[in-house]
């Protein structure tokens, strides 16, 4: 693929599962875990997510690198929440008070985020993006949103290439960015040209699609089929989710 989709290239049982089943599982997991707020279900969820990641045999190093980027945002929360959340005082740094509740909250948030990210990586990133779009479509997401999703993905790279080409064209005519009006104006022209060119390109691609009979719905060559392993997987998955959130059912239901 244009953007590296290396995660989708494996051939484990996770990769072979029906895309709709995987998407549904990821969705259920994300919703249930995001409303959970106790240590046991969240920690168990993290373990389930890790187990799936390992079964999908994804390159651990690259996965961790991706998690690192997401955890940079979480890190910001660690800086502010322990000081701003009211509760039992754990330590004092000058006038600032670190609360026990604040720390615990950050800890749970970190587990929660990573568990959901790991599930998304091991279930939804293990299929090509076009297939993901099709799976979304068959689970009832409207055509327009799916098309928007697929085409954004498909053409982000084309826009980047165009940007590089324009920048090179500027550079070979001796352009060096400086802090002056000429630089600002040139960059503004670059961005403007990029928007105009992308728009024109989109029109031409759309025209070409219309000429080949496109009427708003994308079809695909992959045929989905629910197999026995899909049934077993989704059953065990839902069972696990139910067991780990057992104590929270009253909260979830009411």
């Amino acid at each position, binding site marked *: 693929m244009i953007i590296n989709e290396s995660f989708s290239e494996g051939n484990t049982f996770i990769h072979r599962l029906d895309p709709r089943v995987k998407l549904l599982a990821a969705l259920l997991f994300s919703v249930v875990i995001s409303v959970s707020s106790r240590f046991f279900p969240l920690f168990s969820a993290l373990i389930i997510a890790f187990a799936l990641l390992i079964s999908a045999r994804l390159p651990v190093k690259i996965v961790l690198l991706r998690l690192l980027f997401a955890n940079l945002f979480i890190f910001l929360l660690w800086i502010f929440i322990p000081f701003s959340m009211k509760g039992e005082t754990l330590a004092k740094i000058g006038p600032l008070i670190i609360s026990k509740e604040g720390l615990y909250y950050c800890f749970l948030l970190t587990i929660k985020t990573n568990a959901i990210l790991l599930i998304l990586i091991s279930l939804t990133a293990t299929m090509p993006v076009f297939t993901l779009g099709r799976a979304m479509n068959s689970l009832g997401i409207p055509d327009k949103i799916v098309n928007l999703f697929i085409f954004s993905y498909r053409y982000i790279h084309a826009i980047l290439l165009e940007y590089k080409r324009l920048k090179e064209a500027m550079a070979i005519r001796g352009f060096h960015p400086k802090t002056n009006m000429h630089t600002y104006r040139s960059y503004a022209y670059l961005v403007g040209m990029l928007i105009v060119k992308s728009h024109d390109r989109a029109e*031409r*691609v759309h025209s070409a*699609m219309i000429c*080949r009979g496109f009427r708003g719905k994308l079809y695909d060559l992959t045929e989905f089929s629910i197999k026995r392993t899909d049934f077993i997987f989704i059953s065990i998955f839902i069972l696990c989710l139910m067991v780990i959130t057992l104590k929270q059912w009253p909260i979830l239901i009411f």
Partner: protein
Amino acid sequence: MADTDILINLEKISFFFPDGKRVLEDLDLCLNKGERLGLIGPNGSGKTTLFRVIMGLLKPTSGKLTIFGRDMIHKKDFTPVRQRVGLLFQDADDQLFNPTVLDDVAFGPLNQGKSPAEAKKISREILSSLGLEGFEDRITYKLSGGEKKLVSLATVLAMKPEVLLLDEPTTGLDVDTTKKIIHVLESIDVSSIIISHDMDFIQRTTGTIYGMVKGKILPDKGEYAHSHVHAHGHGEVPHTHSDISD
């Protein structure tokens, strides 16, 4: 000739841009069944606009357009036309948008309502007829210019069109790929209109050649001696030659 033999008929078609720029002016053109028309003309003479009008991508300012015996008035009139007329775009990058070659070639047949299995079969057949076996899983984005053009042609041919409109199919291609395209066009029996600057290519692939200047079709006036060392029709219209003689 019986009316049923006329596939595409343009009567006094004009197209002006909103700023008043005249691209097509009172243009008459008729494509009969089995006919191969060539169109040569300088950049900006309205050739591409002509194709866009025929496909219903642009609405002519005035004039009458008839395709397969039906008057084209509303946008929806063109929906069945697009299933039967194939347009090869000038820029292959505009035509190819699927991740893999097979997906892209199958796009048209799937839109025609074919099942995935049928679409796959048709696509494979077309690809192998163009000498593109083994290209199925190649990434469209990473193909070379010539390969892109051939795959684009495959995406159009996969819809089994009755009429082919080719917009500068050989621009920027090397001699070998150009020869390949000539070979493909000679081997299929489809009525077509071909736009090209390349006089040798257009003479090999079409029967009648028209010149186009400033939105108007020039009549075929026969051989016209001009400043090359050779003579052929439309010598007065700017054009190039490629060395494709075998």
